[in-house]
């Protein structure tokens, strides 16, 4: 009993300008019977702060086309081949049946200065990655997307902001990242999603991330990094429904200098909003292992106007096991 009064007092004190209505809502878990009486469509009152900091809980999603291309880009085929005119590529065989669904949507870039400062040999690597996107993009293998790519893939993610950890759970193959607000030891090996340590500067969450491996890309346009990648991210609430998200990217092996991208992350407020599973490991088995079946499974497709036949190819040498 005394304890209950104690934390009521603490909550009133720490809530600051938040009204008493918030205190009563968050003092104790609502009994299930009462909750069932409330209409399912009404969102529960949401505290403005968690432990004195902006409340970032909820389902968020970027609305940029950054996962396709970080720079400003116009419409183009997902996989292209030369057309009649040298500067007008057309949909190539893997995607020609998709028509408009086989295009990259246009979008303004998210990079300051609309340019990524690649070293010359890295710029050539990026160009090669883009040309071999279908064979090489780790996203297509259902691999963990890395950071910051997971933040702007076109799928929602849910932030659970706890006492001294902030977890972001991504819909894409259940990937996640944990931002540590307390001092903890780093992992013993490099990781796909990095090791993130955060602290608050006023209303901005500042996150330092490193311990990356070199296996993820930044986009489907072939932007990549080495295991020397270091990020500084800043999350600043603009209002209860939008976060300004800025990322400074540093990788001395790939870029001539640090560069920055920024975008807005929007909170989904539809009461029906939820993460569902985008578990793609089973789905991609045919893609990357289909050539090793005893008997070929996916080989022929016929629509009304098009027939597609698949012939598998095994790259020579080490590329057989190319990741």
């Amino acid at each position, binding site marked *: 009993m005394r304890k209950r009064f104690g934390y009521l007092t603490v909550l009133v004190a720490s809530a600051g300008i938040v009204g008493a209505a918030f205190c009563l809502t968050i003092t104790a878990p609502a*009994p299930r019977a009462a909750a069932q009486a409330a209409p399912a469509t009404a969102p529960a009152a949401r505290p403005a702060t968690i432990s004195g900091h902006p409340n970032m809980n909820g389902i968020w999603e970027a609305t940029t086309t950054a996962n396709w291309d970080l720079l400003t880009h116009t419409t183009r085929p997902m996989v292209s081949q030369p057309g009649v005119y040298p500067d007008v590529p057309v949909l190539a065989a893997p995607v020609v049946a998709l028509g408009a669904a086989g295009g990259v949507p246009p979008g303004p870039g998210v990079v300051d200065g609309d340019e990524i400062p690649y070293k010359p040999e890295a710029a050539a690597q990026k160009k090669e990655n883009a040309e071999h996107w279908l064979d090489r993009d780790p996203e297509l293998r259902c691999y963990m997307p890395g950071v910051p790519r997971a933040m702007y893939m076109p799928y929602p993610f849910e932030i*659970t902001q706890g006492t001294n950890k902030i977890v972001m759970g991504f819909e894409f193959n259940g990937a996640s990242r944990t931002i540590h607000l307390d001092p903890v030891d*780093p992992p013993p090996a490099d990781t796909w999603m990095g090791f993130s340590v955060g602290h608050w500067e006023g209303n901005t969450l500042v996150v330092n991330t490193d311990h990356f491996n070199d296996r993820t890309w930044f986009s489907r346009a072939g932007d990549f990094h080495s295991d020397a990648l270091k990020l500084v991210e800043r999350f600043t609430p603009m209002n209860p429904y939008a976060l300004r998200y800025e990322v400074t990217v540093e990788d001395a092996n790939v870029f001539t200098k640090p560069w920055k991208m920024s975008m807005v992350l929007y909170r989904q407020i539809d009461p029906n909003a939820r993460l569902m599973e985008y578990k793609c490991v089973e789905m991609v088995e045919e893609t990357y292992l289909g050539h090793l079946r005893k008997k070929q499974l996916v080989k022929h497709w016929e629509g009304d106007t098009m027939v597609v036949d698949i012939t598998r190819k095994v790259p020579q040498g080490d590329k057989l096991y190319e990741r």
Partner: protein
Amino acid sequence: MRVKGNRYVFLMALAAVPIVAAGLVQRTAGQNPSSSAKGESSAKSAANGAAPKTAWGAPDLQGIWSNVAVVPFERPKQYGERQFLTEDEHQKAVDALLKRDQLPGRDSRESQGKDIRGTEKDVARAYNEHWFGDKPTEVSYRTSQIIDPPDGRMPAYTPEAQARMKKQKEYLDALLQGTSGGKPGPISPMRYQPPPDYNLDRMNRADGPEDRSAEERCFLDRLPIVLAAGPLTPDGRPVGSFAGEVRIVESPESVDFYYDVGQGSGFNRVVPITNRPHLAKDVREYWGDSIAHWEGETLVVDVTNFTHESDFRGSRENLHLIERYQRVNPKTLRITITVDDPTTWVKPFTFVQELRKNADKPNMVYEGGCHEGNQALLDMLVNTRAAEKLFSEGKGPDPAKEDNASGGGAVPE
């Protein structure tokens, strides 16, 4: 404010009564776990102290949690309906465990007292023996994880489930026929047929990725997660154990579980705290649909909508879990899970895991990369295709006559 608090607390207490009553009436409710006072008082490993709360007043479930005490899933019959060991029985069990810890591993270089080095069985076991982790040293006071039915044992399987499992076993055995791991006889015609049901077990065939087991395809992320026991140092670090742990992060609107289990398979599960209903019955997910709500000091997570690709001890898409999380005291998280699948078991059953808090700073919850690093699945298929090619050229044995499933004559798990 004080007066308001008084009234509010009184109302809360009143409101709690129908909740508790409703919980006891549910078909799927197990024994009320908070009534095991004997277990708590005799559980010397539990630290004294009130269960912590978060800054917003909810029971605090957060931390890194692992299972440290050995306790069988099903109760040995000699204990009858007894949930807890006596002090004497417990001490004997501890002595027996520590003695067992000194023996060579389950897959040692011996079989039935004979040295089997250099045999097919020895090679098949080599992986397990090399990677053996540190062994647990604590024994729980509980006689079993299952606390309901009262005999601490799983209820009987339904005839439907028994028939399903019998067909599956016949199929797996047929694929071992004529190999060193199976009955003598010709290659079974079942080898050229698909399995009777969606298969997650290790099968003696590798025509394609679907023939390989859930572990080999990195499908380890299935609910419920049942943590094996592994040791913690006195300062709360897991030491060389494969038992796994779960990190829980909690907010007013969601609870996130990150499971570091299965020797490098990490899986994240974010559960909304909501009164929203489940997904429609025809929408199915690998991990089902989890929704949570608080019942007093207990977080109740209800999970339905599993796919047919589930297999928790024989269950399939009709699996229904009710998970209850209680922060018993600063060092202990109790997870009570009721398992209900009327197409698999004749009645529901409930089991409990009491997890110990790990130290936070060592941060020994690691990212999994099972799929990202799955060279093995690719290699199994490459090697089998190569063996078939050699056999067709008369240069190697018939792969169909080899045992690549049971570990060289041992019984398949």
